[in-house]
């Protein structure tokens, strides 16, 4: 009797539902051990600082993507939006600096411009998905191609931020021990989004629409508005990621966001958010982001070739989805 009771507890603890709650924790723990064993410089202060500041843009982008994936949708244009925002910031920072002479005003304006662009890009996917009922992965695949070219059209080659404007982006390098200001910003944003998810009409609507769109509609929820808003938020987050990257690199790079789409989706999925929607939360995303960051940074430290790194991330995302997918669902649709 006692025995069966125990084994049922064990079974429950390792049931699929719970696996993802611990898998990121375990993964982070194991990865840190492995990378440290392979190269002890992994845990030195300089690398930790580097790792944590690298994490910030990814975390901001993953925060927005979490809402989109909770809706059972996906946005593949995230990385391209990030690139466009990145080149916009750098280009207009110089232009505005010349024009107004005040680098802080110029920074504010160019950041705002990039964020507005992100909102606009998100709005387009939102409208295509909600109003025209296009599957979001196709709509965003098309837009990805559009934004990639737009980024290259704005500045074909990387241009650096002029030295006299560096003051406007120095906030990126403020550190408290190994923890950088950007990471604190990103964590605060996730905290804010967590409250958004659990304590607002929008957050509850996202969970409801992702869980059962038809039921949410019949219950009188505003399904279209919820979808559009989630995509807009995601667009803004992607643009914010682009701003962070500009500040970090002190230059623009029209292809800087390309690799992020995969990383962002991997982070959200590793964080336990179901691709089928309606299940998951922002706190999980934090863990997912760290898992991805550690893998990326660790591979750099132990000297894994960049091309091989993408193979690893591809496999990581497939593995994470294989573990989390609810195979009892009748259809496999990303809306």
């Amino acid at each position, binding site marked *: 009797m006692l025995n069966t009771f125990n084994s049922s507890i064990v079974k429950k603890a390792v049931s699929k539902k719970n696996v993802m709650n611990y898998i990121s924790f375990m993964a982070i723990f194991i990865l840190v051990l492995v990378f440290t064993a392979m190269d002890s410089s992994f845990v030195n202060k300089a690398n930790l600082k580097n790792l944590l500041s690298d994490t910030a843009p990814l975390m901001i982008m993953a925060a927005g993507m979490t809402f989109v994936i909770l809706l059972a949708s996906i946005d593949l244009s995230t990385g391209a939006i990030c690139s466009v925002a990145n080149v916009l910031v750098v280009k207009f920072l110089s232009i505005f600096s010349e024009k107004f002479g005040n680098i802080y005003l110029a920074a504010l304006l160019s950041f705002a411009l990039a964020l507005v662009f992100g909102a606009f890009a998100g709005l387009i996917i939102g409208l295509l998905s909600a109003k025209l009922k296009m599957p979001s992965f196709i709509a965003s695949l098309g837009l990805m191609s559009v934004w990639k070219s737009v980024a290259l059209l704005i500045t074909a080659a990387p241009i650096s931020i002029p030295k006299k404007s560096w003051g406007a982006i120095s906030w990126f390098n403020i550190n408290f021990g190994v923890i950088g200001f950007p990471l604190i910003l990103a964590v605060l944003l996730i905290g804010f989004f967590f409250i958004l998810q659990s*304590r*607002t009409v929008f957050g*509850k609507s996202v969970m409801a629409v992702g*869980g059962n769109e038809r*039921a949410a509609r019949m219950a*009188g929820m505003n*399904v279209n508005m919820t979808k559009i808003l989630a995509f807009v938020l995601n667009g803004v987050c992607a643009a914010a990621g682009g701003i962070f990257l500009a500040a970090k690199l002190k230059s623009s790079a029209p292809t800087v966001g390309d690799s992020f789409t995969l990383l962002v989706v991997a982070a959200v999925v590793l964080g336990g958010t179901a691709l089928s929607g309606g299940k998951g939360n922002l706190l999980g995303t934090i863990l997912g982001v760290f898992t991805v960051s550690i893998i990326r940074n660790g591979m750099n430290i132990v000297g894994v070739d960049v091309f091989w790194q993408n193979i690893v991330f591809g496999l990581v995302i497939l593995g994470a989805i294989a573990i989390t997918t609810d195979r009892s669902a009748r259809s496999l649709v990303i809306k």
Partner: protein
Amino acid sequence: MEKKLLFKASNITKVFAGTRALKGVDLEVYEGEVVGLIGENGAGKSTLLKIIIGVQPQSGGEMTMFEKPYEPRTPRDANSAGIGMVFQEQSLIVNLTVGQNVFFGHEKDFRQFGFVNWGKMYKATEAALANVSCSHIPARKKVLDLNFATRQMVEIAKVVNLTRSSGHEHCLILLDEPTSVLNETEVQQLFVEIRKLTAQGHSIVFVSHRLDEILSISDRVYVYKDGENAGNMPTTEATEERLYEMMVGHSTTTEYYKLDQQRKPEPDVVLDARELGLKGVFKNVSFELHKGEILGIVGVVGSGKEDICSVICGDEHPSFGELYVKGEKRRYFSPAQALRDGVLMIPKERMEEGIISGLSINDNIALSNIRLLRSGPFLSTKRMVKQTQDWIKRLRIKTIGKDELLASLSGGNQQKVVFARALCSQSDILILNHPTRGVDVGAKEEIYGLIREMVKQGKSVILLGDTLDECISMSNRVIVMCDGLVTGVFDAPVENKPSQVSVVSLMM
């Protein structure tokens, strides 16, 4: 001359998740006869057919075919035992030819050097069609170009061919509402073909909602009611009236539907539909809904009653007519708009449209009134939890707590959550689409009490009942629909409820 017994099912039972869909029904089919099978929606006809064809196993009871035990596990088993079925929704693939459809899934029988020998297949198709006396159907024509009756015959030819290839001389064909997609002449055409089949010694089980068809085509009629035998007789002894009576049985107790609590509605009109119509589905539907009234709408599946509800609750736009809600002319583009006027529907398919099974009771109850729970920009968790706990207590929802996921509740308790959601949404015009569907008897009674309570508080209800009895007993007024038109309106005061027989006769 005594005919030979072909198929026999005795005392078949079927239990779905605690509810008994079949409580022990019998069916006997002799060679060369057409057996009609009738009953209300939910009487168990389709369930029995699915058991016979091997789509789902019975929970109890036995079947024999050619007087040998018959236990199909898949439709293929059924086919090789000599039983085939034509499903209600046609299953032909319309952009393939007749021949490709007849031998769909059996193409490898015509394989030659790794390719399909089409000529051989079409020759075999012609033989199969000739078998059911349909050699006039061209085997190479696309199904798309055939009318519905001809398609139906192709389906029958396909099924007969499958069962014949099992090596049995005679076979049993199950037809589930084969006439629902056919017009009058096509129906006659189908009947002629059915007669040709039975002349060859094959047998047919014919399920239909239309009693006149049953009377004209079948040799014997079985009547089921609520998953039980209501009787069977040779068609020569049957009349429409007698069959109606057997189908609906005797009315249930007053207590069950809380008839003593039925109240007279107030004179104020809260909802006024004028000549409402949805293209190709229903038209010219006009009615007034009064404050505190329960208005029942009855009709068979496809009569348009469900679509009226979709239009009123904002899920679909009406093509014609006008809708006035509380005196204002309204045209809704989404249920969210209707909700703002206090119009809300409790949908029929609980799992697909009613609940969000991956979310908690707490979240589900708050779906419709989430905006009212705001204090400032954020939701008041305290008020939300209090609301949930109140409703769990008031409706006696059996749960371990407010955070339990809907997926782990029983059907009755899930439905109570849906009701709680609707009741706290502050809507006063509620459309209840099969509110007691898939709910056990005890929970049903509670739901009836709840509906009575709702109208007592001045809410108005449009009710689509799970059974006719339920709809008549609960309602103040009953609208009868048939083929998209209103065919009758009955007042249903407590002391003078219309008889089910008189209502059914307008439904068909």
